[in-house]
């Protein structure tokens, strides 16, 4: 698997994979952690956790894509 992975014709596929998974990863991170923050806000009656959760989710999603594809 690793021998096949390094061949130059697979580079294009890897690159396309990475670029297409950026928006969905960021959206998923925002949805999960923003949603958690929103629920916390509802529970505690505050309005601070939702923005924090959104930003945290974006950062985590971006970190995930960067570590996964950017060697």
């Amino acid at each position: 698997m690793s021998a096949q992975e390094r061949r130059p014709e697979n580079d294009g596929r890897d690159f396309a994979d990475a670029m297409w998974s950026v928006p969905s990863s960021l959206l998923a991170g925002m949805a999960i952690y923003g949603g958690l923050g929103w629920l916390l806000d509802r529970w505690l009656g505050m309005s601070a956790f939702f923005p924090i959760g959104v930003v945290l989710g974006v950062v985590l999603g971006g970190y995930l894509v960067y570590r996964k594809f950017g060697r």
Partner: protein
Amino acid sequence: MSVLAEVSGNVTAIGYGLAAIGPGIGVGIIFGQGVQAIARQPEAYGLIRQNMLLGFVLTEALALIGLVAPFIFQNIGAA
């Protein structure tokens, strides 16, 4: 004087439209310059690709934050 043109609908749509301008330009610059860099120096492909990915992630994050900004500011503005 009669009304020449009017806009009706949700203001947040305009907000997202404005928020999408900057990331649009940014993504265009990143990919344009990235492809140019790869064409000039194909042997540096790995490094260029990594930095393109980083720049794309950071720029796309701005666009997506613009998408949820109306929800964040909902309970501050109109209420």
